[in-house]
């Protein structure tokens, strides 16, 4: 059984269909990319999976359990952690506090009103671990709002990682980065994904990034899936080229 | 209004007070030169107009007294501070005057919520409070405390005067519009009882929240009631707003407007909208008696305007206090209280008797009509009826009348 299954997922806004009958299976340990031109419905798909937006039709199953009707925070608690297309951090907190707060969300006594030094200690340990894996240890003490844009993108990934998610959803992790920043970020990410412990669903615009990181690609066009296969096959797919790669130089 | 001179004057008063209070022990402060009278009152906020009148009356009285060598050979000095009409501030200011400035006599405290919050503390402070304008009937009924005295006219007394006047009027059916406030409800209760006693048809009353701006719905209600007269218990901005709008709807052409009280300041602010209004008055400066004539003449020499309603009422309270202090030969609360109880004074409104049972000053009641007069910029009140003290003063410790 697949870890994450989408089954006929549809979202309509009035007459507009943002996501149309999308079905997809992501196996444990897989790194899957969802690509498509602007407005293809990639981010909408993420919003549907994570419960930010309610689906008009269809279902999301995670480890066999249906997520439909669950609120966003609860879905996150089942083990799905995401990053945002537009960087979402706690700008006045240090990088370390950012990951700590993220890690704390997965702990039983995350709400503890007094004391809580053991909670903090454990959360800091998990957070520091995540920072190290993304090479951010050197900037751990800096306020997140003052980090470079590249580090901010990686910090968001570190926050998701600190939650030890069973599925990691990355929404355009290199969005807005310069060429050099993108290269180094991709380097870091591919190192992270190399060992195959993580299950990743990746939305990305940049083809270079997708082909470096993903082992399987789903192509969305106007809300519908038009291809779903390994990178080489997708690259060669005529429909995909027409819809997407054709316009991409 | 120019405030500059007032400010420096008060600063002077404050600093002398500060020097006088070398110790926090009240005994020493009391032995100091002047007689200090504390006056927390609203100088800013919606009730500031009333506060300004009360302050002027006290300053005028103090000047008169001090020109004649003071009281008990000591000069009189007012310690004045702004309460914004807020009871929390009023209590704090009063407490400061008592604890820091060694005050043993209070006046001012204009708003009934301020007074009701303050009076329970008087015993603890060992201080006498002589009201200058508080109309809330409860202060001399359920809420009476031994150290409170009211030489001024209360709300029920004003209503009673209007009601007595109505007994002789051909109007049969009456309606009421009151402020949704203790004062409004108390006065309307008295009015309703009086209507029934006089065999009139009381068609009901509505109450508007304080701060109401649009009275159109209330005007519709009054019109629909079919009453020939409507009794108004409104004050300040609400009163001005209602009268302005009633005039725009030509309400006065069909219904006689009656009011518990109206002062010259409101008349000046509302203009012709008040003409024809019949109402009670705590003090109409047009009263014809020698004491009042001398007072009005002296006042006009000082301020070039006639004294307004709250100015007259507050002045009378000061005169009563003066007589009390002279009789007691002291300002200690116990002695002053004994002296004030049963005290009789010939004041600007005629004879005032501070009856011992509930500390209400028995005095005449007046009914006025607002008229336009040649040569006057604003309409003025004209006294159309006067009722003796025993008819307008309620039974002891009561707000409602039984005859």
């Amino acid at each position, binding site marked *: 059984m697949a870890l994450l299954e989408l089954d006929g997922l549809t979202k309509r806004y009035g007459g507009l269909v943002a996501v149309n009958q999308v079905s997809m299976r992501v196996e444990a340990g897989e790194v899957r990319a969802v690509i498509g031109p602007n407005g293809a419905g990639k981010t909408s798909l993420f919003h549907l999976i*994570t419960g*930010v937006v309610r689906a008009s039709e269809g279902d999301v199953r995670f480890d066999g359990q249906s997520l439909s009707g669950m*609120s*966003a*925070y*609860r879905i*996150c608690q089942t083990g799905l*952690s*995401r990053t*945002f297309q537009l960087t*979402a*951090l*706690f*700008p*006045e*907190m240090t990088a370390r506090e950012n990951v*700590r*707060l993220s890690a*704390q*969300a*997965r702990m039983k006594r*995350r*709400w*503890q*009103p*007094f*004391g*809580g030094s053991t909670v*903090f200690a454990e959360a800091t340990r998990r957070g520091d671990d995540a920072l190290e894996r993304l090479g951010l240890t050197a900037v751990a003490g800096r306020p997140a709002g003052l980090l470079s844009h590249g580090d901010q993108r990686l910090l968001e990934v570190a*926050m998701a990682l600190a*939650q030890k998610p069973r599925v990691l959803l990355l929404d355009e992790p290199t969005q807005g980065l310069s060429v050099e920043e993108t290269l180094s970020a991709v380097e870091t990410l591919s190192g992270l994904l190399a060992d195959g412990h993580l299950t990743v669903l990746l939305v990305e615009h940049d083809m270079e990034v997708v082909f470096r990181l993903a082992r399987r690609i789903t192509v969305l066009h106007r809300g519908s899936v038009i291809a779903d296969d390994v990178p080489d096959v997708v690259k060669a797919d005529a429909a995909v080229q027409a819809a997407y790669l054709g316009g991409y130089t | 209004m120019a*405030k500059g001179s007032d*400010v420096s004057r008060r*600063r002077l008063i404050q600093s002398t007070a500060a020097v006088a209070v070398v110790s*926090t022990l009240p005994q020493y402060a009391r032995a100091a030169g002047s007689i200090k009278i504390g006056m927390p009152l609203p100088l*800013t906020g919606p009730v500031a107009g009333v506060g300004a009148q009360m302050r002027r009356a006290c300053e005028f009285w103090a000047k008169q007294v001090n020109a004649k060598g003071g009281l008990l050979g000591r000069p009189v000095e007012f310690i004045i*501070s*702004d309460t914004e009409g*807020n*009871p*929390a*501030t009023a*209590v*704090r*200011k009063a*407490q*400061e005057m008592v604890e*820091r400035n060694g005050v043993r006599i209070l006046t001012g405290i204009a708003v009934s*919520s301020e007074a*009701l*919050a303050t009076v*329970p503390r008087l015993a603890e402070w060992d201080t006498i409070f002589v009201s200058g304008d508080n109309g*809330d009937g*409860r202060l001399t009924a359920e*809420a009476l405390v031994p150290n409170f005295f009211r030489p001024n006219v209360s709300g029920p007394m004003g209503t009673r005067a209007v009601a007595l006047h109505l007994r002789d009027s051909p109007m049969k059916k009456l309606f009421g519009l009151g402020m*949704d*406030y*203790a*004062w409004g*409800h108390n006065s309307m209760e008295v009015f309703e009882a009086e209507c029934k006693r006089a065999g009139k048809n009381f068609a009901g009353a509505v109450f508007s929240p304080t701060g109401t701006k649009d009275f159109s719905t209330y005007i519709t209600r009054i019109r629909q009631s079919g009453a020939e007269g409507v009794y108004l218990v409104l004050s300040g901005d609400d009163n001005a707003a209602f009268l302005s709008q009633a005039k725009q709807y030509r309400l006065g052409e069909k219904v006689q407007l009656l009011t518990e009280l109206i002062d010259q300041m409101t008349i000046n602010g509302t203009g012709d909208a008040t003409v024809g209004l019949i109402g009670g008055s705590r003090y109409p400066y047009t009263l014809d008696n020698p004491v009042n004539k001398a007072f009005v003449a002296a006042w006009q020499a000082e301020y070039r305007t006639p004294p307004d309603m709250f100015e007259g009422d507050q002045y009378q309270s000061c005169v009563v206090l003066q007589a009390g202090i002279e009789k007691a030969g002291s300002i200690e609360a116990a002695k002053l209280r004994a002296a004030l109880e049963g005290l009789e004074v010939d004041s600007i409104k005629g004879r005032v008797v501070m009856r011992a049972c509930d500390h209400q000053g028995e005095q005449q009641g007046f009914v006025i009509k607002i008229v336009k007069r040649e040569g006057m910029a604003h309409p003025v009140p004209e006294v159309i009826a006067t009722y003796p003290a025993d008819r307008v003063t309620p039974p002891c410790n009561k707000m409602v009348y039984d005859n």
Partner: protein
Amino acid sequence: MGGWRLFFLAAILLAAAPLGLPVFAMTLLTEALILGLLAMSLDLMVGYTRLISFGHAAAYGLGAYACGYLALHTSLPLPVALLAAALLAGVVAVGVAWVCTLVTGVSFSMLTLAFAQLLYALAFKWTSVTGASDGLAGIPRRAGPFGLTVLETRNGYYYLVLACMLGAFALCRLLVNAPFGAVLRGIRENEAKTLALGYNTRLYKISIVAVAFALGGLAGALYAPFAGFANTDLLFWLFSGKVLIMVIVGGQGTLIGPVLGAAFFMLAEHVLSAYTDSWALFLGLIFIGFVIFAPEGIWGLLNARMLKRARA
């Protein structure tokens, strides 16, 4: 800052105050501490969670009316009445917050204002309990069966207020420094992200509003027997606005700042109004000056000074 060390120093100084201060200064200090407790409770919402309330007078008024009613109509000892009033405010807050947290930003502020005004209307209309516009007057300080007659004296009452203040401060400080407080800071800086991390942010918001109301209610409950009355002015929106300004002028998100802000606001108004009728003009200019020259508020100003001295 050596937080707790400063706390104990302040506690000792305040405890010694009755020895050195004149009578009326103690009255002012007591009232300042009560208002400080109220402002501090609002800081939990405004400073730590960015929940800007225009209706915190609701908590104060509820506490004051509840405590006043109990003191006038029952023989409950004062400490019990205080706790009951605080509890009532906290419970009411859960309902209020449940509705208010449906929206965010200025709409949240306006809904808190709406609730406070509805309570104000209720206090005006529920005559048998609240005394309508007259309010409750002559509220006694009832010592009760424990023989705590010391609470009836001025200094005894001051120590009660001081104890409540210090206790509440310690509680708030523990709360904001615990994991729970870390989540509040997350909500303050980025609520959507906090939700996405898996926190039920609405529950956290409702909880903190309940704590803030309970402590604000405690402040109101302390005020009623202190001043001897409770009336509708304590619930009016203008008072809510003043408390909010106390928090901001003191320095939001610092707990101690709002306490200083409350004392400053009250004393500035009290002292200025004794010298000039135009006190509002000067007070207004002072606030504008603070926004421009001391954006971090009074506590920020003091902190900067202390840092400078430490460096020198």
